[in-house]
């Protein structure tokens, strides 16, 4: 894929929504790949002891899933030059054979003269907003 052109983007352009299922196996795989072995992401007992309703996804995994919506749209992951999120509510991942989910929507909120688009992301899980101030700056051609 080639990188998206600024001429094909306008303020208000919507990015295709994506829904990502998240299972316990996904959390174990992400723990191994990232090196974040905090037990609240795989151990129900520890998660409930610290006051969580159950095992939750790594915030950084949610951040990574949301980035996929931006990089797929941009056509080149190298186009994402700045990316910020604030972590709000946790993404619960129950051990019920189904797991949790993360839904990501995006919209171009600003476009600069040097061809950079600011994408504002709306990231929810089961209807609750899980990230706030989730913003990506994408360098267009």
């Amino acid at each position, binding site marked *: *894929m*080639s*990188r998206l052109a600024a001429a094909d983007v306008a303020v208000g352009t919507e990015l295709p929504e994506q829904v*990502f299922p998240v299972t316990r196996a*996904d959390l174990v*795989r*992400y723990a*191994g*790949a*990232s*090196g*974040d072995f905090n037990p609240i992401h795989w151990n129900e007992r520890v998660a409930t002891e*610290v006051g969580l309703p159950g095992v939750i996804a790594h*915030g*950084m*995994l949610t*951040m*990574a*899933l949301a*980035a*996929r919506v*931006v*990089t*797929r749209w941009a056509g*080149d*992951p*190298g186009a*994402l*030059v*700045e*990316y*910020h*999120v*604030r*972590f709000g509510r946790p993404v619960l991942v129950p051990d019920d054979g189904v797991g949790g989910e993360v839904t990501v929507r995006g919209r171009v909120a600003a476009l600069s003269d040097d061809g950079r688009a600011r994408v504002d992301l709306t990231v929810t899980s089961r209807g609750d907003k899980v990230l706030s*101030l989730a913003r990506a700056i994408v360098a267009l051609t």
Partner: protein
Amino acid sequence: MALDRELVGRSYPPSPVYEVGRGKIAEFATAVGDDDPVYRDPAAARSAGHPDVIAPPTFAIALTLEAANVVLGDPQVSLDYSRVVHGEQRFTHHRPIRAGDRLVATTTIEAVRSVAGNDMLTTRVDVATEAGEPVCSATSMLVARGTA
């Protein structure tokens, strides 16, 4: 106990060199469920204008999380890590991380704040090649709830 404001600006010695392998990038891409060939296939990466396979935008955490641990070891940083949650995260990319990079990470305390009994610690990890080329910065805000 509130964090000492004099910690702001404190920098720690650079990490040992982290060598980025194609296998580690592919493992991380799989863990975030992304099948984009620029993360796995050097030919696809080259046709997209990259010298080798590149890493997903949040890959840097695999080295910056470890590098920022240096702050935990600082006896002057009194943060109750049993109560810490990740509040915010930012990545600024000068260029994508790619296979073959030999990276060093330098951690700096960027801000400390106390709001409503919560201590907030912001660290910035600057990632550069061994030769000094800036690659990215990862800024993390940690919140320790109710430690004041």
